[in-house]
């Protein structure tokens, strides 16, 4: 019983925190980002899951956000951002430079 209470004390806040995070997902397929324009809340920390559904590696890169993270083929990464000021933040695929996207913080 004590273990159950302790477990609840530990996991409930974590679950609540997880619940409060809206799902921000960017899919890479055919070397393109989808959605290419993602809106996220400004002024708080956010997580974006980058899901690479291509068999080849890709790099999520953004000078505005100061991020460079490799996403292996058929794998996912989490990009931790913020708190962001309201505005738009460009990003691109470093291995396929013509593939670009933007994150809008509101």
């Amino acid at each position: 019983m004590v273990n159950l209470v302790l477990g609840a004390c530990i996991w409930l806040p974590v679950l609540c925190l997880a619940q409060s995070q809206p799902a921000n997902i960017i899919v890479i397929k055919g070397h393109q980002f989808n959605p290419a324009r993602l809106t996220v809340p400004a002024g708080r920390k956010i997580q974006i899951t980058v899901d690479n559904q291509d068999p080849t590696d890709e790099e999520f890169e953004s000078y505005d956000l100061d991020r460079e993270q490799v996403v292996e083929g058929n794998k996912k990464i989490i990009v931790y951002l913020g708190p962001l000021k309201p505005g738009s933040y460009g990003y691109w695929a470093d291995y396929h430079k013509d593939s670009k996207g933007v994150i809008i913080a509101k």
Partner: protein
Amino acid sequence: MLNNKLKAAPAIIVFFTAFIFSHPAFAEKLVYAPNAEQGEWEVENTGVYDFDPHKDKNAIQEYHYSIGYGVNSFWHTELELEAETVPTDDSITKFQATHMEWENIFQLAPKGEYWLDPGIYLAYEAPLINKQVGQFEGKILLEKDIDKVTNILNISFNQEVGGGADRHTDAGVSWSTRYRLYRFFEPGFEYWNDFSAISHQIDYNQQSHQAGPCFYGRLGRHLNYNVGYLFGISDAAPRGELKWVLEYEF
């Protein structure tokens, strides 16, 4: 992707060779970010050139030539050759390779997950000259982005090993702040100190303290630079020091 990297090989060889045989070249006075980039190779050249009215502290040069690789998203490893010159009464002594170093950077958390981005740096420096000693070096790497300002703190510990080694552990701190103005030009400053042995408290002026403006940036897709001039702000430090870093990523 591998083919693209192989195509870049001749350019890298030219780059590396050019800096090995041109002087003053680059030396390693680098504030390390706690980042590892998976699958990324880098060829790096860093250096310092000291200016001081005292002959024994003037024209001291130190150069590092290295090749590194991001093994995975949390481990970057690097092999490095260190070379240096020191002044004598009559002229500069010959330029010679003094150490071979194996460096490792461990990124302890994804960037942005915590309030501070943490990392660890571990290195062993093996002597190439009989009279030199080896050295273990550890650093705590911390980074904090505040909007467009990137701040990095390194806390360093050095321990010599081998015959004739100093038993005392040295400590030092280096700090870098830069404003991400443009990708090709980011102004900032650095502060460096060497507290000397932890167990022996010495006067401020016996410790080396340096600070000055630095500029960072990326030229084209692959070339990163960092150049700065550090002013000596304690007696033990040289009056001035030119420092630079060139890094080719592929």
